[in-house]
């Protein structure tokens, strides 16, 4: 092992241990990054990637272990110390003040001029826009920006503070394919300028696209550090998950039955009260998956929310098994067998409640969980134990608050609740966003399994690969309209891409 105090190592972490109640998040981790390299940190949900980087950035204090930064022993007690050492971090959940302007976010905490500090921000924003192509409007408020633009603000924040070691925690998980390419370009430019980049991801393609070396984490331990050029996708996947991963799903031909969901010329407004869904018509039959492709923000969210009763539609009608259910409240729809896996995980759960309680959120007022006004915790816990086993949720116990689980496990809890009693209609919005290959594979299989059991599935996703893999028919949404519905075997990336961009429309016929 090289000497940790060698200056060519930008970061050396040795024997890092971090425990959380019931979890050993980092188990004697040793991690070294060379100066000027792009180093990928790969691992499943809950492997401990964020924890390790939070330790380097001073947000968590390690229980054991030592850290060297640029060859010198470092004690990092707070982000302030990390910043002083030239470390910058773009967090997985962006840390931005969403009601403030870009300029205000950039200068926060910087020793710029006391009066009118945003002026300094404008200068920087111009400079970085020229140097790395990071352009954002300094006067825009954060909540008005897309995820990609917000991320640029985060990167600019780190650069302004003179960061030459930049940690990017799953920077691509919220970006569209175009934005991802742009980001990778920016990262390459920064590395060429001499920045050291730590790039956290669980997507294998990205590891190969960008990194020089890769460290794989599994269940809190380092399983390998490799030169990226000397490895391949299959072996990395095996290292990460600990078993072989199937990249192709087994999919039987669909056996569509009667029509379960029929939507007729539905119109829905968005939060700003502008039309978001403009006359959408579609049907989903029992035993088939209708995939809705499209770039996020083209009305998918509003459509789904109208279908599950969270948003009122303006015009048009919705039928469930021939019965009109337009604008019925969620409770009524749930009772008729509509289940919903929301895209934003926080929406599907009560984060402070335990796993067991979250698993009965929909049925808490019914037998056998409730007896009169009281809850029967013996039954609830037994139910939780059964589902935790069946859906392989990794949790210290069913009594753990759900917010402490990793992303993949949180999604399993939602899936377990939504699918455990064979729904009539399953609406899944971005079901695998932010999940690692293992969890993604599991969830896709589960959705197929639901279909085979005769559930009608409406799948909304931005991930074209997911849409193509799972759907029996594919609808493409653009600016609130369906550009066409294709049977999956006729769909190819090119056509769908054109439709997603609004450049092609296929006339609707019920045959499709």
């Amino acid at each position, binding site marked *: 092992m090289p000497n940790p105090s060698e200056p060519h190592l930008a970061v050396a972490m040795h024997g890092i241990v971090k425990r959380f109640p019931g979890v050993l998040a980092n188990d004697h981790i040793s991690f070294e990054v060379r100066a000027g390299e792009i180093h990928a940190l790969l691992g499943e949900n809950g492997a401990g990637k964020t924890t390790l980087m939070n330790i380097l*950035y001073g*947000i*968590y*204090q390690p229980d054991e272990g030592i850290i060297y930064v640029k060859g010198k022993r470092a004690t990092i007690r*707070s*982000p*302030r110390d990390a*910043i002083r050492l030239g470390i910058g*971090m773009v*967090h997985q959940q962006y*840390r*931005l*003040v*969403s*009601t*403030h302007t870009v300029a*205000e*976010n950039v*200068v*926060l*905490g*910087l020793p*710029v*001029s*006391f*009066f*009118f*500090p945003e002026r300094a921000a404008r200068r920087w924003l111009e400079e970085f826009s020229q140097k790395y192509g990071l352009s954002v409007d300094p006067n825009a408020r954060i909540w008005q920006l897309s995820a990609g633009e917000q991320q640029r603000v985060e990167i600019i*924040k780190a650069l302004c*503070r003179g960061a030459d070691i930049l940690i990017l925690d799953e920077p691509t998980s919220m970006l569209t394919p175009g934005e991802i390419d742009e980001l990778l370009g920016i990262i390459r430019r920064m590395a060429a300028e001499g920045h050291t980049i730590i790039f956290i991801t669980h997507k294998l393609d990205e590891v190969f696209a960008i990194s020089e070396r890769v460290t794989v984490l599994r269940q809190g331990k380092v399983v390998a550090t490799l030169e990226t050029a000397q490895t391949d996708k299959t072996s990395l996947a095996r290292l990460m998950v600990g078993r072989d991963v199937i990249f192709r799903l087994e999919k039987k031909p669909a056996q569509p039955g009667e029509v379960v969901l029929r939507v007729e010329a539905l119109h829905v407004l968005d939060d700003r009260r502008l039309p978001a869904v403009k006359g959408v018509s579609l049907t989903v039959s029992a035993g088939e998956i209708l995939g809705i492709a499209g770039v996020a923000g083209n009305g998918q969210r509003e459509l789904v929310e109208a279908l599950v009763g969270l948003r009122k539609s303006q015009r048009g009608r919705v039928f469930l098994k021939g019965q009109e259910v337009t604008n019925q409240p969620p409770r009524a729809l749930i009772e008729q067998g509509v289940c919903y896996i929301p895209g934003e995980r926080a929406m599907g759960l009560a984060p402070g409640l335990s796993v067991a309680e979250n698993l009965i959120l929909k049925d808490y007022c019914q037998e056998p969980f409730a007896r009169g006004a009281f809850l029967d915790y013996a039954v609830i816990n037994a139910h939780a134990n059964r589902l935790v086993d069946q859906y392989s949720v990794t949790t210290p116990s069913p009594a753990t608050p759900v*917010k*402490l689980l990793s992303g993949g496990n949180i999604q399993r809890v939602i899936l377990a609740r939504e699918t455990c009693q064979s729904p009539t209609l399953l609406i899944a919005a971005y079901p695998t966003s932010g999940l690692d290959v293992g969890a993604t594979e599991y969830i896709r299989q589960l959705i197929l399994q639901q279909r085979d059991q005769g559930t009608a599935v409406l799948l909304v996703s931005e991930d074209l690969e997911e849409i193509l893999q799972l759907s029996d028919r594919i609808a493409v949404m653009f600016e609130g309209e369906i550009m066409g519905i294709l049977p999956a075997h006729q769909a190819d990336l090119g056509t769908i891409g054109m439709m997603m961009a609004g450049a092609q429309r296929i006339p609707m016929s019920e045959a499709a």
Partner: protein
Amino acid sequence: MIVEFILLVLKAAIPAGTPLLFGTLGEVTAERSGVLNLGVEGMMIVGAVTAFGVTYTTGNIWLGLAAAALAGSLLALVHAFASITLRVNQVVSGLALTMLGLGVSGLVGKRFIGMPPRTRLAPLTLPGLSDLPVIGPLFFRYDPMVYLAIILALVLWFMMYKTRWGITLRSVGESPATADALGVPVFRVRYLAVLFGGLMAGLGGAYLSVVYTTAWIEGMTAGAGWIVIALTIFAMWDPVRAMLGAYLFGGVRVLQYRLQPLGISPNLLNMLPFIFTILVLMLSTGEVIRRRVGAPAALMQPYTREER
């Protein structure tokens, strides 16, 4: 006749609203950092008794005001320690502070009841301006504290929106995790904001006992602290809007006295400020939602770095 009456109410509304303005400016600052302090009533009354006591003993009104500011911040320190360091529920801690303040002031103030004031604060006279008809008495003949409150409101507004401190303060109240990740000392900012809130509440109470009423009466704040809490929302956490709100409520208070001789039940009139509070809250809540200028997002949330 009517015009005279309106002018009379307007002129009286400014001093009547001044203690509310002091309190509201303080509470706006504390809440902007993410700490709700329901102890304003307690801090104001302690400020009132301290100011009266010190002024009575030393004969120096400025010493009285300074002592009140100090007393208010000391009480606020209790709340800061409980809610920021110990992470006690802010509502509980604030309510406790109010009760503590009311109790302590009653006890300490016993011997000042019925005592005459030893000095008064003379109104400022600005040569020329103060003698103008109508405008003179309406704008240029108040005591110095009235002008101090106005200047503070303007300065605070400027600090909040145009300086580094302001960005820091507002960020800590919106998203302490964001501020912390950039090396901002979240705890220190919150402590200072809460202490400043106490200082201002102390001054507001002091204004009541040594400038406005010039006497110590037990429980003399009479709910002013609660109106401050409501005004903070009405002001949408903005110092300049706080000015508007405080004088409006000052006007309501004045009306309360002016309408009494007309035979309206005093009980009804005593309810006036609180009815008005409820109305104002109902109206401004709508606007708060419409304009997306809600309460600081992290209001009432204690911060710890390692929690998620």
